[in-house]
């Protein structure tokens, strides 16, 4: 029974921890399906986390924090778009620049406002996205099987988590069923075909990066106002890159990407639980090795399991009219 409870707790933790990963991976997916590589997920998330915490702290409203975070993240997307769509710049370099700018800018501004070494003060309960109890969660809690699963695992997550999971089918629907999705996929495969069909390549790609901005905004918000209770410098800790790896591992498809995100989140949850625990046979694993688990897994998955992945054909290629 203890074992089962541990499993359920692990699943519960996985779901919570996967929130920013899913959102960021979907962001990367929308952007790259449109042909724009987005290494800047990390920076956008970090910037959004900072803005969300700051605004939520100042206004006392997590919702205003969310809106501001989305605005900030979209602004960063537009910089990326300006460099890589309008000026045909190197998309990897542009994304990297955004990551470095935000890594410096967020603590600089934070320091100017709060004077606590670049972090923000802890958020009060009301200014966070906290656990939502789904209907009947309390009354069903004692029912065998259904109780622990529904009340313990499915219920009790924050708004951002439910939003993240709801966005997976939404993004899939958008990509495969709507006009915008058709054009987006086309522009990531063959922008010239889109251009000669009389549709603006640039505007499509700008919309793609802006969607990525919105999703990273939500992802960042979940980090500082839901999973955590303040902004801490470098709090993304590589999640943006993990999300990219998840997207590649998920072959640029929403549902498989979700699966990949859950694997990463599970490793992360596991590592948190393994710290300081005596395991049979191997004994206690040094904490440093546990911490590097998700990163090592990323390398391992990218190297071993993905095999030959087929990215969107025009991914990372600036569109320049030839003559």
């Amino acid at each position: 029974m203890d074992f089962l409870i541990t499993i359920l707790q692990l699943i519960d933790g996985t779901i919570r921890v996967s929130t920013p990963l899913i959102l960021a991976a979907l962001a990367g997916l929308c952007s790259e399906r449109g042909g724009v590589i987005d290494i800047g997920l990390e920076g956008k998330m970090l910037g959004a986390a900072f803005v969300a915490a700051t605004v939520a702290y100042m206004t006392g409203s997590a919702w205003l924090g969310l809106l501001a975070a989305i605005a900030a993240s979209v602004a960063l997307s537009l910089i990326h778009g300006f460099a890589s769509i309008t000026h045909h710049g190197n998309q990897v370099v542009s994304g990297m620049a955004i990551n470095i700018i935000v890594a410096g800018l967020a603590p600089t501004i934070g320091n100017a406002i709060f004077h606590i070494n670049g972090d923000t003060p802890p958020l009060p309960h009301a200014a966070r996205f906290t656990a939502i109890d789904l209907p009947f969660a309390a009354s069903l809690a004692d029912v065998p099987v259904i109780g622990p699963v529904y009340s313990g695992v499915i219920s009790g997550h924050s708004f951002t988590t439910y939003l993240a999971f709801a966005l997976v089918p939404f993004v899939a629907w958008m990509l495969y069923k709507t006009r915008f999705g058709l054009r987006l996929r086309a522009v990531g495969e063959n922008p010239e075909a889109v251009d000669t069909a009389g549709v603006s390549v640039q505007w499509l790609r700008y919309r793609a990066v802006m969607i990525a901005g919105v999703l990273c905004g939500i992802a960042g918000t979940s980090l500082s106002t839901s999973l955590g209770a303040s902004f801490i410098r470098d709090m993304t800790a590589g999640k943006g890159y993990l999300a990219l790896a998840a997207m590649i591992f998920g072959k640029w498809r929403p549902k498989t990407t979700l699966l990949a995100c859950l694997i990463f989140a599970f490793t992360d949850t596991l590592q948190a639980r393994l710290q300081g625990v005596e395991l049979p046979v191997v004994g206690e694993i040094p904490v440093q090795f546990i911490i590097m688990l998700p990163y090592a897994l990323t390398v391992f998955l990218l190297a071993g399991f993905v095999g030959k992945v087929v990215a969107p054909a025009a991914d990372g290629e600036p569109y320049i009219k030839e003559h």
Partner: protein
Amino acid sequence: MTGPGAQAVSAAGGAIPPAVELIGLNKHFGPVHANRDVCISVPRGTVHGIVGENGAGKSTMMAMLYGFYKADSGRIRINGEDVHITSPSDAISRGIGMVHQHFMLVEPFTVLENVILGVEQGGMIQGSLNHARKELRRLGEEYGLEVDPDARIRDLPVGLQQRVEILKALYRGAETLILDEPTGVLTPQEADHLFRILDTLRSQGKTVILITHKLREIMAVTDNVSVMRRGTMVAHRPTAETSKEELAELMVGRKVLLRVEKGEAKPGECVVSLENVSYTDDMGRERLKDINLSICTGEILGIAGVSGNGQSELLEVLSGISPISRGRIMFKGEEIAAPGKQSNPQELRRAGIAHVAEDRHRMGMIMDFTAAENTILGYHRGKEINGPVLMDLKKVEGRCMEHMEKFDVRPPIPGLAASGFSGGNQQKIVLAREMEENPDLLLVGQPTRGVDIGAIEFIHKQLITMRDAGKAVLLVSVELDEIMSLADRILVMFDGRIIGEVAAKDATEQALGLMMAGCENPAAGKQECGGDE
């Protein structure tokens, strides 16, 4: 040059305004004046040919009509009405459709998805898909353009892909259809089929503008023809009143030889032979199937075929770029390739196999490198230009200069980036590199693609000289004319196999064309070939 008024008398009668008129169009790309005061008038319901050499400005002119580029000055009139076309969607809404030389199709999409792209109605695509399915059936019946609406583009042969492009334009309500070099990827029979479709379109009142550099096609299908040279329009003629020879002279600006002069081949012993060679690519598709062939000294072996039937792969396994999965390749008595055994292209070059790649942009050259750096690609480890550590750049430059003089490369500047040379001069740099090392076997792919006529003559002469010097030459080309005039023996490839061999002197375009379409024994007649023609 004649003004637009001169040919305003339309074939269909003076009362109907021309479908398309371009008046005094100019277009610069930076310092290059790509179109200069270009005028043309295309009567409605006609097939109008536009000929000119590579870079004469044909595509630029059509790109302006299609709204892909904006003209610097000049007017466009459609059905007698001045219009401003600033984007492809403007052109589409004015009834202009275009079939590009490189198809503008999204490969992983289905035919239907490609057809509705950009003209979807409403936010959801399902309704448009349904509508397009019905429309395609109707258009298919009306013009003889049937295609499976649910097939994915990447699974379709090029001929059908082109059909999708035409359907795309018709679905968008095109009244005037521009076709840019449409027959480059087709067999002669497929080309004939296309021309029949164009005939049908014309009889239904559509206007067709056909851009090509193949004079045979102009003579076969067009009503009128306009000739471009170096960015200007040099002549307009009713097709019935002109000839291939006149058009060629107008295109180049001087008299040209349309046939290559060469003596009888004197083949000697065989230098290279492929024995039951197969090759499977990274995706697991078998690209070469049981190839047997040999090439002897003093002969040019031509490989004909629609592109994508294994010719590129044949060059690649012979030059050491790709491994083979079955059989073996012997060169001068030594095994150079077998399953699990692959020779490096550099070793093979040292052993005497030189290779002029089909696509110099993607493979044969590095466009960002200088001409001098390109001169040593594949020979860059040679002892003559390398010390123990350092490379002797003076010698590299010297070698490049020698090549440039011998092959008349202009401008003769070794330090200039390859991208700064014209197509013809780029090709000469590649040819010089591969020929000047005195190989025993020269592999040549598409030697005159994107090359002006002057350079074509030069390159053809060089290949003949190689042959007469007792070298073995393998020539791959999609230009049947080129194969037929240069090669001594011709093999035809289809679907990774060699489907037939003919001596050049016995070859006819008809027979080769049928073999290119997969018919092993053209003498047996069309019906038994199983083609869809």
